[in-house]
């Protein structure tokens, strides 16, 4: 990994340090306790029985057979499911998804839970579920995005506009010197975090304790309390470690609530853990897309018009529409730009946010189309991107709060060795005769921020505890947030303890939208700043303090002490001791700066470069090098940030070449519902991957100047890989993931050439 380009925070002792993650040892030694590791006394095991059909009704269960299995305690069906205070199909908040909680016998997608079997052991419950053998009245199901009638939804994503326009795209297209129109297809994907959805529920009267992985414990608490008719503070969600979520755990899923209801039904603690196959059902997925890009180009290589239209799939019973076209309003300068969506309704589970929702699939199509436009003009794809650099956000005209994309192009191209790349495809090969191609994609992801609160407690011994309901989901938040806390409090890292992952703590917002460090970190920063101000007030008012009489404004905290600019200092512990205080506490809150966000576009940027090797006869593809350069504001922890970026880049590779959930047209179920048949990359697929950090300062995005690094790595990468495949072979594949046969049969085989 390259060093030296990472911005090292000049003012902070902890921020900017590449420390190893705090929980690393606990995780690799198995001491980190995930939800499914919890075993309260008297625990029973529950499993869901998923629907085999995609549309219809359950007509019967063999309850006798299920109950006859030794160890089966109960079977929960619509007939005996404990009552709910809210209809799980009710839209009780602006952003809430309908859940399948055994409200009736209706089936609306394959994999929908139709019953829950509770047993003394997992094996007994599983066998009970097997013996339950539901009978169905099936109706014809439709799962093909290309076969359904489209409509225009009211919004896309989580409340985003379905259409956006600036300028007259049709007029600009009509008069453009060159036009490029291409259609791209992406497949459905399933989140599949390493840790499946799990819940351990313990009822104590009308209080509920829930161990479950969540990307937003406050939201989970509100939703579960609402469904059950409990005061929110009677629902205690604990989620200290989350084994990945990628959006699948951003909202409580039906099976998690079913586990809670099962515990209610039997009056004992219950654990419910989804199997890997069940992860392909009721917990969301990324919708497939069909995307059409239309570009109008001037002779000088500038983009006169850019139109991005996406068709996406959703369920018949709820609304989530992958905002696949939306990002095209913010990447390249264009005389006129428009992004539009349409949707179809299928007999599938409702899609949900999945890492880079919209951005991932949209970036793939956009970056391919940009490459195809560059080829149309005979321009180097990097030069074409530089030429059409968006100095302001094209769709809105707003300036960017910061944008170091040009520096990313420079750093990535230099490290990768882009210079000298031949323009024509099928120009390079390796010593064994494999075709070699080099591709590029621009990475972009909006810098979001939400509301959060935090509290900080400084003890007499000079150590601090910082608490907030933040989420350690494998991304390293617990470590990065502790670094922010240490600097905010002016304490060494060793003196700061961070407590996260519980709904009883202040609401820290969700770990979603690559916003968590900005959101939770800003709240911590505010709490720490408030606590230091209290401390400073104590010190300056205390005649015994070396800082007596110094104005608060000239004080700063560092190394466990308050400092004046002239060298005077007073340790935190000494201030408290003289004041006779055992501890002081402060709270802080953070929220996005509405004015700054109205006047400025805010996004992280990057450039990703891919090298692929392709077997000219067999069509096998291997990504031999992947280099990304990213500018994402201030980097709190370069080591963890690189890990996040590399993880995203691997997702991008997977989007381009591997992942596809295949809906069986006959049954409507996902046919490849295991990690053998639903393929993600393995180490051998990516021998070299590197993420460079490009310095960027942003004084507007939030008080810390941080942008997100969680999702941007996917964008740019998928397109870079696809573009490299084209450069290697001269064949442009527009159906993703790229299949061996699509590439192999489109290339002239060597044998055929010889025959000709």
């Amino acid at each position, binding site marked *: 990994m390259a060093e030296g380009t990472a911005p090292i925070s000049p003012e902070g002792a902890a921020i900017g340090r590449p420390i190893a993650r705090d929980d690393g040892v606990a995780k690799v030694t198995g001491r980190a306790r995930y939800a499914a590791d919890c075993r309260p006394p008297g625990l029973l095991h529950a499993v869901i029985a998923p629907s085999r059909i995609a549309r219809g009704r359950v007509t019967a269960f063999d309850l006798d057979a299920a109950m006859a299995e*030794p160890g089966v305690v109960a079977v929960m069906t619509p007939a005996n499911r404990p009552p709910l205070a809210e209809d799980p199909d009710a839209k009780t908040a602006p952003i809430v998804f309908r859940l399948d909680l055994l409200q009736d016998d209706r089936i609306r997608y394959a994999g929908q839970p139709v019953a829950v079997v509770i047993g003394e052991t997992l094996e007994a419950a599983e*066998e009970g579920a097997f013996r339950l053998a539901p009978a169905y009245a099936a109706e014809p199901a439709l799962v093909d995005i290309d076969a359904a009638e489209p409509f225009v939804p009211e919004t896309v994503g989580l409340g985003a506009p379905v259409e956006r326009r600036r300028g007259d795209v049709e007029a600009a297209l009509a008069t453009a010197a060159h036009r490029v129109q291409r259609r791209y297809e992406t497949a459905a994907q399933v989140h599949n975090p390493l840790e499946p959805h799990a819940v351990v529920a313990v009822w104590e009267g009308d209080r509920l304790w829930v161990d479950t992985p969540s990307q937003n414990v406050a939201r989970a608490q509100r939703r579960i309390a609402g469904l059950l008719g409990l005061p929110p503070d009677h629902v205690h969600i604990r989620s200290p470690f989350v084994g990945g979520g990628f959006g699948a755990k951003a909202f409580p899923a039906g099976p998690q609530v079913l586990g809670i209801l099962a515990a209610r039904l039997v009056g004992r603690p219950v654990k419910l853990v989804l199997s890997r196959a069940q992860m392909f059902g009721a917990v969301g997925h990324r919708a497939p897309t069909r995307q059409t890009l239309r570009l109008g180009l001037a002779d000088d290589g500038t983009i006169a018009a850019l139109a991005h239209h996406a068709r996406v799939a959703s369920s018949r019973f709820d609304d989530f529409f992958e905002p696949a076209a939306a990002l095209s309003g913010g990447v390249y300068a264009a005389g006129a730009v428009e992004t539009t969506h349409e949707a179809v309704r299928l007999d599938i589970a409702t899609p949900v946010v999945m890492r880079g929702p919209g951005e991932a699939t949209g970036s793939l199509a956009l970056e391919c189309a940009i490459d195809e436009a560059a080829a149309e003009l005979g321009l180097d794809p990097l030069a074409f991107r530089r030429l059409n650099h968006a100095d302001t956000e094209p769709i809105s005209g707003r300036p960017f709060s910061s944008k170091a994309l040009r520096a990313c192009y420079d750093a990535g191209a230099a490290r990768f060795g882009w210079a000298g790349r031949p323009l024509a495809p099928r120009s390079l090969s390796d010593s*064994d005769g494999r075709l070699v191609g080099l591709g590029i994609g621009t990475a972009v992801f909006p810098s979001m921020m939400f509301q959060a609160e935090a509290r900080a407690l400084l003890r007499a011994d000079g150590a601090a505890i910082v608490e907030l309901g933040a989420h350690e989901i494998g991304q390293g938040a617990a470590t990065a947030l502790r670094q922010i806390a240490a600097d905010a409090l002016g304490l060494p890292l060793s003196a700061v303890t961070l407590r996260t992952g519980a709904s009883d703590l202040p609401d820290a917002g969700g770990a979603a939208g690559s916003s968590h460090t900005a959101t939770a970190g800003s709240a911590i920063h505010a709490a720490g700043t408030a606590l230091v101000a209290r401390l400073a007030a104590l010190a300056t008012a205390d005649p015994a303090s070396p800082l007596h009489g110094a104005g608060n404004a000239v004080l700063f905290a560092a190394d466990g002490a308050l400092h004046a600019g002239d060298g005077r200092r007073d340790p935190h512990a000494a201030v408290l001791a003289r004041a006779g205080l055992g501890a002081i506490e402060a709270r802080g809150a953070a929220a996005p700066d509405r004015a700054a966000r109205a006047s400025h576009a805010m996004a992280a940027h990057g450039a990703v470069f891919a090298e692929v090797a392709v077997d000219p006869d*067999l*069509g096998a593809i291997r990504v031999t090098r992947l280099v990304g350069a990213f500018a994402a504001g201030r980097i709190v922890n370069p080591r963890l940030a690189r890990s996040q970026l590399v993880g995203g880049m691997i997702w991008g590779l997977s989007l381009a070449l591997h992942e596809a959930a295949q809906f*069986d047209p006959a049954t409507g179920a996902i046919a490849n519902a295991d990690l053998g048949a639903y393929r993600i990359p393995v180490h051998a*697929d990516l021998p070299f991957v590197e993420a460079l950090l490009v310095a960027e300062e942003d004084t507007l995005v939030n008080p810390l100047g941080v942008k997100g690094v969680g999702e941007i790595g996917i964008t740019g990468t998928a397109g870079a890989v696809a573009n490299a495949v084209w450069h290697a072979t001269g064949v442009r594949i527009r159906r993703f993931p790229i299949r061996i046969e699509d590439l192999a049969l489109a290339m002239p085989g060597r044998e055929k050439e*010889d025959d000709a």
Partner: protein
Amino acid sequence: MRRFAYLRPARLEEALAAAAEPETAWLAGGTNLVELMKRGVARPARLVDLAGLEDLATITPLAAGGLSIGAAVRNADLARHPVILRDAPILAEAVLSAAAPQIRNRATTAGNLLQAPRCAGFLDPGAACNRRAAGSGCAARGGDGRDAAVLGATEACIAVHPSDLAVPLVALDARLRVAGRDGERTIALGTLYGADGASTLPPGELVRAVLLPAEAAGFAGHARYLKLRERTSFAFALVSAAAALRIAGGRIVAARVALGGVAPRPWRPAEAEAVLAGAVPTDALFRAAADAALAAARPIAENGFKIELARRVLVRALTLALRGTPARVPALAASPFAPAGEGARHG
């Protein structure tokens, strides 16, 4: 999972007696069976664990030449056994192209040969599958055929056999030593597989060893396994080919060829071997052999591409075999991305 009895006999006679009971399954590495039990696809009442039978786990020379590979020899041990690497390195190349190290450390030789298809219909206990329940139908017939056979498919079953190891073993005329309560017998490996790929062994019979004939070593210098798959490692073959040549005086004295991923069983195209035998090796000859091997192929649904890919994979495997077996099995075993530049160990 259905409740089951677990037995771990120490002697072969006890094992065979235990397996005479109905609804009994042999448990070797368990990498396939246990997964099938979790899915509800396999629901045995009794498991007889072979781990106590130590004489099943050795590789020994046969008196008449050739090798006996114990049924319970782990994949990982097979792949690094010096005699295998000397006499039949293509077996190591095939084994190392399969699964991942953790699985190879558990999985056994006979278990690999007897593994179940990965057809989605077979793996779903609620779906129609003639292989699981004769006469119930074939859910896979409604699919895109991507994972289906193009050679030897039957009305009843279109699944392909998933084993890599079986492909070169069938090519090299391996036999099986099979034990039952009535004694032992030796059968050709090819006859282990019925038309639908399922085992033809009667219930209660046990594979003791795979027997590799002495002639196999004659191909060791020109034998390669090549596997086309959808990621660089840890995936079943889309199509694969084993090609073994004996070359003398600039001619192919004898050829052994088999295909994987295209048929319900490891597919031995005698027509291709006939084309190759006695001929001077050229690209045109290899293409003719591949055409012969796939002449009877028929697509199912949208899988016609597999016919062309199988041709190309076989031509490449023959080309690599002609070039000579490398001194070591490449790190990316059987992969098109294995370095081609290594020197051959035999002329």
